[in-house]
């Protein structure tokens, strides 16, 4: 097992090197980082030249790449460079954003997974029952909704709820501007109040979409295993229907769902871009949208690199989980 992990990590290194070149190419393709600055007002050639020198753009792209890569490996991820943006340290900014995103994503994903598995499994066991039709219909509806519309509508509903709460004198519970700032201060009641108020809408909007995905996955996977020969064998043994479903069909049917979950979690470390933007969470998603809009090259570059590393790591994790759950797969 350890040997397998080491080998996979070694295989991942060339992949990540190529990925860094690809992301560098993408970043470079975004164009001249000073284009907007130059358009702002007339600049003298000397001003322009010194500005290009300051941000390191007087060097060739390969040199810039090596410069960046060397820094990335040793922990110096450079700063934001576009004039007027200030000079934020890329590494500490990404670290901060990752923390914000994690709070949101892990919470939402776990709820979505548990809910999706329960609904999907029930839908498969009671195939073509009213419950199954309702769950299928709901999932299709969620699949067909643009995520940002769900978020926008939820935000609108949250504001209405706040107004109503204020009218009855209960105060504005819902927060639509990021995680609670005061953290864990005040009494337990206050912490619960501020956390739930800040989390409820973004978590709901993420759960709505992800839950639909997991429930469909669970349903399809369980229907597959319910029709499998070994489940027929389990019935022929005279096991109770509950045991047949739980111990035989569900146990095997879980494997693909858990694998997809691990892969998804990796992807979502890159930020729930839409949700974060709508609800004012300054996490990974909001960070990258901001950086792309401002054409901040080092921020975009390091962000993509970190995400790539996390995704590769979670793909490996998914494989390990798969091998652990399915004895037919032997790693090594």
């Amino acid at each position, binding site marked *: 097992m350890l040997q397998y992990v080491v080998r996979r990590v070694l295989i991942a290194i060339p992949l990540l090197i190529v990925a860094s070149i690809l992301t560098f190419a993408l970043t470079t393709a975004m164009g001249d980082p000073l284009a907007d600055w130059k358009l702002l007002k007339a600049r003298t050639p000397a001003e322009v030249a010194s500005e290009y020198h300051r941000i390191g753009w007087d060097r060739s792209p390969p040199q810039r790449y090596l410069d960046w890569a060397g820094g990335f490996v040793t922990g110096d991820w450079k700063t934001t460079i576009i004039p007027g943006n200030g000079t934020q340290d890329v590494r500490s900014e990404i670290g901060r954003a990752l923390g914000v995103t994690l709070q949101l994503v892990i919470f939402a994903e776990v709820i979505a997974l548990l809910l999706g598995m329960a609904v999907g499994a029930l839908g498969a066991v009671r195939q073509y029952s009213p419950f199954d039709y309702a769950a299928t219909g709901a999932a299709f509806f969620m699949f067909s909704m643009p995520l940002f519309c769900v978020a926008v509508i939820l935000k609108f509903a949250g504001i209405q709820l706040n107004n109503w709460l204020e009218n009855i004198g209960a105060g504005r519970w819902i927060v639509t501007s990021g995680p609670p700032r005061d953290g864990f201060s005040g009494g337990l009641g206050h912490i619960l109040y501020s956390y739930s108020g800040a989390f409820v809408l973004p978590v709901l909007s993420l759960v709505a979409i992800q839950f639909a995905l997991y429930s469909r996955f669970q349903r399809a996977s369980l229907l597959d295993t319910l029709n499998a020969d070994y489940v027929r064998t389990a019935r022929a043994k*005279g096991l109770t229907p509950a045991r047949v479903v739980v111990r035989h069909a569900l146990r*095997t049917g879980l494997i693909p769902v858990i694998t997809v979950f691990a892969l998804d979690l990796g992807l979502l470390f890159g930020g729930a871009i839409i949700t974060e933007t709508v609800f004012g969470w300054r996490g990974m998603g909001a960070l990258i949208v901001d950086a792309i809009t401002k054409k901040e090259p080092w921020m975009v570059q390091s962000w993509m690199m970190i995400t790539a590393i996390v995704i590769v790591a979670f793909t490996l994790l998914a494989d390990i989980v798969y091998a652990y759950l399915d004895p*037919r797969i032997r790693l090594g």
Partner: protein
Amino acid sequence: MSEQPAPGVSEKPVSGKVEPLLAVEDLSVEFGTDDGLVRAVRGVTFELAPGEVLGIVGESGCGKSVTAAAMMGLLPRNARVHGSIRFQGQELVGAAPEALRALRGSRISMIFQDPMTSLNPVYTVGWQLAEAYQAHHRVPAKQARAKAVEALDQVGIPQPDRRAKQYPHEFSGGMRQRAMIAMAIINEPELIIADEPTTALDVTVQAQILETLVKISTDVSAAIMLITHDLGVVAGVADRVQVMYGGTVVEAAGVEELFAHPRMPYTVGLLGSVPHPELIGRPLTPIHGAPPSPLHLPSGCTFGPRCPLVAEQCRESEPELVTIGAAEDPGAAHATRCHRWSELSGDQSARRMFSHAEIGLHEDPAADLVEEQ
């Protein structure tokens, strides 16, 4: 097997004296599907004595497996069952699911066709056997595991102790089927339904598996319903053979009687499809066409469209299953569903009956071969 009757069967069972283990009467199974009503089993009647080995033979889609599934209560949800299945006097059609569950695996057990997929890949073989035992016995896990190892030993799996801890994918096909047999006999059932138990296996292990199955069921004095499409498989092991076609029984007789004097053109055709040492170098004689779809059964005799002896009356009405031969001697009892059975002398050669379509092509098979090179 045939010359060594299992315990529980007297040398010459007298009809009505011995309570049949299983009595199926006028069993019909229909499925309502998107494409219409599928009449998978139609009016099937037969009995099985304790310890008897009954071969049920027919092409795929003729209702063999559905009959078995009906007995186990394992039919799909959309199935409608009519008629009666009595097991030791207990009616199974319409019985409470809980009552059927208590029978399944304990008194009636089943072996399936594909041992590759019939065992759960994520549990060890021993675990799955122990589970089968515990489903019907309140015993501690340790005892169930010991029982599982014992059962694996019984079916001739070497090092059963070590093997029990392995996963199905670590077993070969033949070993897995042995494990399935072990699972079937672990609760010492009275009836084992074996649905094409050797079809998915290499020819070399087929005979071993059959032998194991018959020997082991003799040990636990279980009757066997051996479902197969291969007359060669039943020849060596069955006491009685029942041929099914188009969802119903078309001929039933003792194994020797059936092989010697087939009274139904379909059986003749099946016999013509069995490879035989005497026919080396000559082509097998196939039955042309495909079995009828249970969605659209032909009118009259269901075998009519493929039958070389088809006559006007065959298209008009489906023949009854008539008993011929000595009715007072069940050993020689012979039933057939054919309007023209009396014209089949019994020694009819399949080759002569079915080869008309091949005339001019296989007149001289050797010449054919030469030409092909």
